[in-house]
């Protein structure tokens, strides 16, 4: 008997196809179509606003090499610098937290997630407050103490790379510590038993085994850094240092907007990132990790003796640089009339918060972001749950394709996806461009990977036999769903909801392109305030946004305490 007939026989299966096909089409429409539009526009050499293009050619790509060579060089230099810093930081922290008896290890490990939730946008603003020339807090204090000139200048290539490494490099720590944790301690112990010294074991066993993990993390982080936008926008534009993402953004601002140029750059970036991520996947799949099983071990920790406290200080320093100092600087600035680190000169006021909450555009932007967060998270979780069920629990034909489509947005830089959506929906006969509806649709699309992955993690944890057992006990499908499946999935569903909510409230890359005058959201508004209003007001807005995310985060942490830890 063939598979379809078999599927037909199973009670209640015949409507499954009726669900999958539309789902597949809708997801493909949302995910793939914008990229097709982008490709077409990148080949448009005629009027950039014309659709469909009147002339095709490769001029846009050629222009990139002729006119934007400096941008490419900047991008590579900054991405390489940031990746190196991120990997060094990640490796050091991962080693300290998994292999040494540093005090307060579990707590420190949780704190390491915070920079990720801070977001690079808030991080960049905070470091602009801390380390800009002249007015930066560090430089103020330096001159107050009698120093000359500026100690730091964040408005530089190194400055951009530094912020990227601090706030987007957390993933290096997560990946490397996962590699270190999944190594069976017996591999090291057997080297020691055979007679190798500690150092020899580290060099001949530990390092070679962890190396693939480190290389994988490096490749992955580098791809992320190439597509990074926020720090380059906040710091790079005032510094006149353009990278590819800001160059894309900039060419859409000219008149007429050079959508063709922007599309060509976006597509080139996408291809490079896609190649790197594929390379990373290939490395993982090829089994360079043969000795690294999926199992998590608690590796034997080394007793560091008196060195334990200095190691603790290293971890603490990272938290201070990536969380405590930035937040303190923003808080101080937001409460002052004029930003200053010298408390004797400070004039404290709540006016910035009053202004942020009273100002019409800011208020609507905040309200819109919250509305989008609530809406996208709620509807998104329902739809994603259906997708997860199709991909991981049904036996339908084409579920592999659904999975691939759902994960696709991850490979596209957020900003490029925003551009693609912009161009696609400008030319689609459905008039939702410039409304919250398009933003909602865009958020849903770019959050598919994280939402589906979070939900799938929980679904896969729930042993199938728990559900089967309910059926054997005589429960019908609905009764089983109500009494067994849903209660077991509840924490995961809430976690996914909160993650999507947080990601929506802080979304920048897609929003900058799709926001309309009547549909403003908070993150681009913060960038706008930074460019046009004072840093004090910007700081207040950034803190309000951060506060919203922190509340959601606290609920998330409380919920997931017993559950899985790596919700990155």
């Amino acid at each position, binding site marked *: 008997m063939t598979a379809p007939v078999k599927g037909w*026989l199973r*009670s209640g299966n015949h409507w499954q196809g009726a669900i999958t096909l539309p789902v597949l089409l809708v997801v493909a429409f949302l995910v793939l179509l914008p990229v097709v539009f982008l490709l077409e526009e990148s080949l448009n050499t005629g009027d950039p606003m014309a659709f469909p293009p009147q002339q095709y050619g490769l001029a846009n790509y050629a222009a990139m090499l002729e006119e934007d060579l400096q941008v490419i060089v900047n991008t590579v230099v900054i991405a390489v610098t940031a990746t190196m810093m991120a990997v060094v930081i990640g490796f050091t922290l991962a080693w300290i937290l998994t292999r040494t008896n540093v005090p307060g290890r579990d707590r420190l490990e949780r704190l390491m997630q915070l920079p990720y939730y801070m977001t690079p946008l808030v991080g960049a603003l905070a470091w602009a407050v801390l380390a800009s020339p002249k007015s930066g807090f560090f430089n103020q204090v330096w001159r107050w103490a009698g120093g000359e000139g500026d100690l730091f200048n964040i408005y530089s290539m190194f400055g951009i790379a530094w912020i990227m490494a601090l706030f987007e490099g957390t993933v290096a720590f997560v990946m490397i510590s996962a590699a270190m944790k999944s190594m069976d301690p017996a591999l090291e112990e057997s080297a020691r038993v055979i007679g190798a010294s500690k150092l020899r074991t580290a060099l001949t066993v530990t390092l070679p085994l962890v190396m693939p993990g480190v290389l994988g993390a490096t490749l992955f982080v580098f791809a992320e850094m190439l597509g990074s936008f926020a720090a380059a926008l906040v710091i790079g534009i005032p510094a006149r240092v353009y990278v590819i993402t800001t160059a894309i953004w900039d060419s859409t601002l000219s008149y007429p907007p050079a959508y063709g140029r922007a599309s060509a750059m976006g597509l080139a970036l996408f291809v490079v990132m896609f190649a790197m991520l594929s390379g990373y996947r290939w490395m993982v799949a090829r089994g360079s990790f043969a000795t690294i099983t999926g199992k998590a071990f608690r590796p034997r920790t080394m007793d560091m003796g008196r060195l334990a406290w200095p190691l603790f200080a290293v971890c603490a320093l990272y938290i201070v640089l990536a969380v405590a100092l930035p937040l303190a600087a923003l808080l101080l600035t937001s409460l002052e009339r004029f930003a200053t680190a010298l408390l004797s000169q400070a004039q404290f006021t709540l006016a910035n918060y009053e202004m942020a909450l009273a100002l019409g555009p800011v208020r609507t932007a905040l309200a819109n972001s919250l509305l989008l967060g609530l809406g996208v998270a709620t509807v998104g979780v329902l739809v994603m749950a259906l997708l997860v069920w199709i991909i991981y629990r049904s036996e339908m034909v084409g579920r592999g394709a659904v999975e691939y489509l759902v994960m696709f947005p991850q490979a596209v830089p957020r900003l490029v996806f925003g551009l693609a959506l912009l161009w696609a929906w400008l030319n689609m006969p459905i008039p939702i461009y410039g409304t919250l509806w398009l933003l909602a649709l865009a958020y849903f699309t770019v959050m598919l990977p994280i939402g589906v992955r979070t939900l799938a993690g929980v679904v896969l944890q729930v042993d199938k*036999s*728990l559900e*089967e*057992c309910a059926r054997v*006990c*005589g429960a*019908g499908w609905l009764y089983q769903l109500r009494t*067994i499946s849903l209660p077991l999935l509840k924490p995961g569903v809430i976690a996914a909801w909160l993650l999507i909510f947080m990601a929506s409230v802080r979304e920048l890359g897609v929003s900058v392109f799709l926001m309309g005058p009547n549909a403003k959201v908070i993150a681009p508004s913060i960038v706008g305030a930074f460019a046009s209003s004072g840093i004090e007001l910007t700081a207040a807005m950034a803190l309000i946004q951060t506060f919203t995310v922190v509340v959601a985060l606290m609920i998330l942490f409380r919920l997931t305490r017993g559950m899985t830890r790596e919700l990155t």
Partner: protein
Amino acid sequence: MSDSASRIVVSDLSIRYGEVTAVNGVSFEVGRGEHVTLLGPSGCGKTTTLRAIAGLEQPAIGTISIDGEVMYDAIERRNVPTEHRGVSMVFQSYAVWPHMTVLGNVAYGLRVRKLASSELSAKVERALDLVQMRHLADRPASKLSGGQQQRVALARAIAFSPTVVLFDEPLSNLDAKLRAEMRLELRELQRQLGITSVYVTHDQEEALAISDRVIVMNVGVIEQIGTPEQIYNRPRNRFVADFVGSANLIRGRVGKPLANGGTIEFMADGGHVLRATAPHALRGGETEVAVRTAYIEIGKTADANQLPGTVRRRMFHGDFVQYVIDCPLGQLIVRRPPTNLVAEGEDIELSFSPEHCILLEG
């Protein structure tokens, strides 16, 4: 097609996963109150067969009926959903629901059946008493040890008084000591309640100890069906002889039948002539006899096959002693009780009765 003596009738069952045939034309019956075990190595299709009876797997061919009612019929496209088959099951992973208490787990099947609360609590208590878990009724199921989860799973499976209970390797996750205890309890419980059960295991010792009948499976087909004694004493083929218990296999060819019932002459390679038993009809092509390691005696016995031998190795196992013995048939493994030890290098006489020398199907 099914007479009322049989509780479960499985006929001609085949189950496929894509290109792979997991179960290939399996037929058997389980009588009322009978305890039947499906025994075989991993991947032999035993669990798949069990799950098909529960309605958790979709067969490609064949029929399954329970109590005379057809539950699955590939040709008539009849497939009664799991929850309407009235069977119960204990899962290998226990599948104890972590978000409920012990009581919530055990009462589930009764709540599904909308029992009145007085009757419900009486039945739950009885089930919990049977597995000695009443004192833990209010404990969250996530805070139970492996052995306790096992008991909860068992109580849950019998609480709603099912007539058929399916067991999918229920003891395989327990340690050896606990496993032996639970084996005894299961057998006791099964007798007490008079339930019909189908039990899946890869542990031959477990299968022999707790079953009325054993079905030995391999690569999707049934190799032999019989009582534990039949399976052990009269294995049908090489696979059964090898997989259940331990046996010496001796190659050779069949000679002439001897006068007294079923005994034949067997010319072992190397020229030695043995008297053997052919419990199954001769089909020609038989080339092996099996002799259980426990059935070979050291010393002379009247009216048995006799062989001289030398002890090559002796290994002390505690409950028995295993000898490797060089003899005209090659090397034989012999297991004896740990009394009267024989030293390595000693010359001895081996003997085994013709009824323990079983001709295998070719």
